[in-house]
């Protein structure tokens, strides 16, 4: 049984009081809180086995190198990738996407080619492509979603053609919560010869991923959203594609041989990991993934699904609240507007009431604008969220509504 109260005890920050009160943390879509298993592991490395990974040949160095490479394997299994060589550690998901844009993109794109993205992308899966288009003369094409935030397969097909060289889509929208049918998207994209980059930043927090089943070419996500530390992210790429991609950054251990005349580069994944790796962060990230696996990804999905139904019902009790993103297949992300009250004003009262949510454009400005807003309030769920969090949110929203209504 999924005992959320027991699980919450693993998260020290959820026991931490602010102004004498617990905090209802509803901003996991921005960044997740960390279980003590992750914190303990990172501390243990620093206290008993820390050195620069892949450098020295003494005990500490060998210990951390071994842990670092095990972390790579943990990510491999989390994604169900064929090989650990397909896992590249980056600073975050944004860097992972930039890496593909700067290497694969610059190598393979030319004027006349198209990159196809959905209307639901956040800036990380949009701006790098815009930039590579500006440099290569390729064209960025955006396929529309439905007004309720749903994916529309017909819209996708209408914009996909033989000029499409890359499809870059999110598996779950950070604003609307919409789940995208990746397997279906990949299959038709491959039919026209396009590669597919899947942004799983949100999806990975709540769902089992199987890159082999999807058959996608690239996947990007970050450690801090999957209950691990900041400063670490992952790029997955199919080995045969990564192998022919040029390096991204230069220096450190990404080389094979260096002389003043010529340098040859290391094989994957080292070729894409220039400089000292964020080894402890990678190990911490792996610990976060293992934590999720121990609870069971399916159990997490189920718990959050139940809570999503509860939250949707509860939030409908707030006067003048309009939910933005109501696709039938959506995850635990609730973006909304309360007519006549600016989200920043809402957030102020929510903060006073110890409810943590995000407001603004959620790093997805074109999407928020497309839905008819410049700013939205967003509450989002994590594996530790419970009904009390939702109740606290609704109470605080009713208070905000009253506060701004009366004056």
């Amino acid at each position: 049984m999924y005992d959320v109260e027991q699980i919450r005890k693993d998260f020290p920050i959820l026991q931490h009081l602010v102004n004498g009160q617990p905090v209802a943390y509803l901003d996991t879509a921005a960044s997740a809180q960390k279980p003590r298993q992750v914190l303990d592991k990172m501390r243990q490395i620093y206290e008993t086995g820390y050195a620069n990974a892949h450098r020295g040949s003494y005990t500490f160095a060998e210990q951390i190198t071994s842990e670092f490479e095990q972390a790579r394997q943990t990510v491999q299994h989390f994604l169900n990738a064929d090989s650990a060589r397909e896992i590249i550690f980056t600073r975050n998901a944004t860097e992972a996407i930039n890496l593909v844009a700067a290497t694969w993109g610059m190598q393979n794109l030319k004027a006349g080619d198209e990159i196809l993205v959905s209307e639901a992308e956040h800036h990380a899966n949009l701006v790098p492509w815009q930039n590579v288009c500006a440099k290569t003369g390729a064209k960025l094409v955006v396929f529309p979603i439905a007004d309720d935030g749903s994916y529309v397969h017909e819209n996708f097909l209408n914009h996909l053609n033989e000029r499409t060289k890359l499809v870059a889509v999110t598996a779950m929208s950070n604003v609307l919560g919409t789940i995208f049918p990746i397997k279906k998207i990949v299959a038709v994209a491959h039919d026209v010869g396009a590669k597919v980059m899947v942004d799983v930043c949100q999806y990975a927090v709540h769902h089992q991923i199987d890159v082999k089943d999807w058959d996608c070419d690239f996947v990007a996500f970050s450690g801090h959203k999957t209950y691990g530390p900041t400063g670490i992210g992952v790029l997955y790429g199919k080995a045969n594609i990564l192998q022919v991609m040029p390096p991204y950054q230069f220096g450190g251990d990404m080389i094979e041989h260096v002389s003043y005349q010529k340098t040859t580069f290391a094989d994957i994944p080292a070729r894409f990991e220039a400089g000292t790796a964020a080894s402890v962060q990678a190990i911490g990230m792996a610990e976060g993934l293992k934590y999720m696996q121990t609870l069971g990804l399916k159990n997490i999905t189920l718990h959050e699904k139940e809570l999503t139904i509860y939250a949707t019902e509860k939030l409908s009790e707030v006067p003048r609240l309009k939910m933005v993103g109501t696709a039938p297949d959506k995850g635990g992300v609730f973006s909304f507007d309360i007519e006549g009250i600016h989200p920043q004003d809402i957030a102020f009262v929510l903060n006073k009431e110890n409810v943590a949510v995000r407001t603004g454009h959620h790093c997805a400005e074109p999407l928020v604008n497309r839905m008819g807003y410049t700013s939205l309030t967003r509450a989002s769920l994590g594996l530790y969220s419970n009904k009390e969090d939702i109740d606290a949110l609704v109470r605080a929203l009713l208070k905000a509504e009253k506060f701004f209504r009366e004056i």
Partner: protein
Amino acid sequence: MSIEELIENFAFFDSWEEKYQYVIDLGRSLEPLAAEYKTDEWKVKGCQSQVWLVPEFKPHSIHFCGDSDAILVKGIIAVVLMIFNDKSPEEIKNVDVAKIFAKLGLEENLTPSRRNGMMSMVEKIKQYASGAE
């Protein structure tokens, strides 16, 4: 009302609700900003809500008008303008706004967070003042 009077008035409030209702009322009575100024040209960057600030340079002082689409922010703008309005560029430069906000108990509105625009607005006011010298 002077800022000293405002500090005195604030001393009577026990709860954040009372204090911020008062701030909101100040925003309500703010000198209105003509619609023609509510453009990108007069927008203060770095604010989550839309904030407009328009200076009017007088022989020895600067008069500012401001507005926001967020109610609380508009109230805070009223406080900021109460501090800076109709002062000489030299006086504006020397104002320690953080100290005044601390006395008012409004310091939470002047955090360096990118999400909060008040710091950007104060910087903008100071920029106008240095430009006018």
